[in-house]
């Protein structure tokens, strides 16, 4: 059983989500902040006339915010029929992975992150962490 993951980079590490969930990847746009929104909500963007919620994945994964001048990319995924934009550092390739490469995360991983990272695919050069999009975009803590 092989599947395809759309990959992206966050803080130097590679992450992937099921390619079927991904609607598109594009350059980041101006975001409208939402006061009093749960932290992790990066704001709202106008995606061709549709108002789309943006989630800062760095925040969700407990990474330091991106440098001020760095331009994040947006990966738009479909969650419960609603498009949601994930802010990532860089967008990578779509990669074929096999189940045999998969391993669940180690017990030493922060429980909060275990929710989000379902496991890792052992690629020849690096580890590709599989992200649970549903959980990653759920009501940010």
């Amino acid at each position, binding site marked *: 059983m092989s599947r395809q993951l759309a990959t992206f980079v966050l803080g130097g590490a590679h992450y992937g989500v099921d390619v079927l969930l991904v609607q598109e990847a594009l350059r980041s746009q101006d975001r409208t902040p939402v006061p009093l929104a749960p932290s992790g*909500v990066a704001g*709202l963007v106008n995606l061709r006339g549709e108002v789309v*919620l943006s989630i800062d994945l760095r925040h969700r994964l407990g990474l330091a915010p991106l440098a001020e001048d760095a331009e994040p990319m947006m990966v738009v995924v479909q969650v419960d029929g609603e498009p949601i934009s994930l802010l990532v550092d860089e967008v990578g390739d779509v990669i074929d992975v096999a189940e045999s490469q998969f391993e669940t995360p180690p017990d030493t991983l922060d429980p909060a992150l275990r929710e989000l990272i379902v496991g890792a695919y052992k690629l020849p050069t690096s580890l590709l962490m599989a992200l649970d999009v549903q959980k990653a975009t759920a009501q940010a803590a």
Partner: protein
Amino acid sequence: MEDLDEIVHEFLVESHENLDQLDSDLVALESAPGSRELLGSVFRTIHTIKGTSGFLAFGKLESLTHVGENLLVELRDGKRSMDQPTTDVLLRMVDGVRELLREIERSGGEGSVDVAPTVRLLEAVLAGEHVSEAPTTDGSAQPVAQPVVEPVAETASEAAPAEEEQMESERAAAPERAVKAATKPAAKRATKRAAPSASAEMPGTTVLTEDPAPPAPEVPHPHEASEPITPSGESEHAARTATDTSIRVDVDLLDALMRQVSELVLARNAIARLANEGDIDLARASQRLSLIASELQEGVMKTRMQPIEHVWSKVPRMVRDLAAACHKQVRLEMIGGDTELDRSLLEAIKDPLTHLIRNAVDHGIEAAADRTAAGKPAQGVLSLRAYHAGGQVIVEVNDDGKGIDPDVVAAKAVEKGLRTVAQVDQMAPADLLQLLFLPGFSTAATVTNVSGRGVGMDVVRTKIEAIGGAVDVDSTPGRGTTWRLRIPLTLAIMPAVTVECDRQTYAIPQVSLLELVALDVEAEQGGVEYIRSAPVYRLRGDLLPLVDLREVFGRPGREGSHATIAVLQTDTVRFGLLVDRVLNTEEIVVKPLSGRLKAIGLYAGATLMGDGQVALILDIQGLARRSLASESVEQARRSSEDEHAVRAEVEQVLVAGIGDGRRVAIPLSAVTRLERLPVDVLEHVGSREVMQYRGSITPVVRLDRVLGSMSDQRDEIVVVVYTRGDRAVAIVVDEIVDIVDDTVTQHSELGDMGLVGSTVLKDRVTELLDVRAAVAAADPMFFDDEAADAFALVEV
């Protein structure tokens, strides 16, 4: 008569559609004679037309379809097979039906169309091959009539004479009463089926008519319906048939159109913005575009409009049943049923309206005996009114019942712990009625099976607010109650004011906006005053509570007093929202907000501005609830504390800055006045600083010096005046920070000279001033008389 025309119109629309289907079905049937499905479909179509035509007293049409139906019955029952002559004659029948329908549409009656030859042909086909079994149509009518005749046997005999006269001479004598009895229920069903299918109740479609007129709200009584339709001269659109002027459109398609028009409106806004700066030709073109876009928008919006009658159509039955259940006599009046609303809104007001009507019948209108005793007619009147007003649709539910007694409401609110006695005492009767909308409020003394289970008006309010509407109530005890729903015309596009706060744009729905007030730049703090810590503004003499949007959003306060107050009205409160500035009024397109943001409760949606930026639409009700309810709750808490005299625990203190970032808390009970004065009011008596205050020489103590901190020299000083009897001391501080509640139990002993300890207020360590020491530093004699009193006590 109008209703009847409407029924005829719908009948025509539906029949035309059915006939087209019939044509292709019959032809298909010829090549697949055995298809029961096709036969069933053909049979149903003809049966429906027959039934409805009988009901509408189109005798010729009825007789024609009747014979055709007989033929189809035999085909369906397998007594004959489809062959070419049969198909021919059936197609002829269809043509005949078409001709009749055209005539009905043109003149309102059947005119001189002669159906006799076709009937004879049909009968010939029927008789020709089945002489032995069905010599006349009489016999074959039985199987059709049989299944439906039973349940309505009694109505048949009663209704038959009325119809008898209208039966025309050429009508074949064969189909007798049994048939008429059969047509009756069939017609009823047919019309009932026809009406909803064209209305909102069929979920997938909406009907577009050239003259959007209400379809029949209810099936009229058979007797009325049986009246002959008098030809109403030339119909206005004789040239076009019903099918030409009205089509069925998928609601999804309309929604898509609506979305695109919304986009167009946005693009128009963007161009209009550009054109304002550009050349004259662009401005002209933009203006035209603007005009067309507006018209297009209006047109598309109209396609989604449906008369409120769709919702009302069920009311008569409901009121009748309710009245019977409650043993009351109620007459129902409905005015303005043709008022149109967006169909999604129509759907949304159904439940609230039902709730209000149930309430009115169950609790509003009294029992007949009570009414008579009160000098009112035994029969109560419940009236529904719908009308347009101020860009909204108003729907009123009015009863002439016992009304709502504000005192009962007040008592109930106190009993349920929703308000305190002190609070309700201060409320005007109209405000008391608003308490009905509080969650957990139900005044019904007894729970009936109709209403009064505690899920009350708050649900109505929530639902109406959810669609951007509002609900209020008027009531005169003994005279009746009026509930008024204000509903926006449409959900998708709404007029709004865009405002700026902390560099972000927000939209405020125009519905909630009363006026805009620019803060007075000349006045101190822009004319904003404070009652304790609550900012207020004097608006034409009335105090308007203010909510600063920056504060709500937890943003840093704005510099200077450049701000605008948007005076907003929710159904319960009026308040002023402080925003940085007002940008524009424009039509905004409401975009749904991600469910993940709904929990915040401050945003009603989002919209796209002309430049493509997303702007949030403020939910004024939510904002008021969040900012004002919490305040009133706090006030309630405070006042209840006052009542219970638990002041020992919590004391209000004035927090003042004294330089070096130090803060000092002064018990508010010690403070009589706060003054901001120019520094040159300070004079000297010997080495002491004094000032003239209210005609006497008042000693001055500089708190920073007493407590050993350094503050900057200023032109203005802030003075806290402390009075005791006729003596006063002026305490000079750097700035007044706030007035907060100080919980005594949290005090720390940690102090210093001139302090009695310290505590944490507003996340800052604050020193607790030893007022006696500070005052004594300025006026050693200040407490002397007290000491004298004490001595006096000792001596006695």
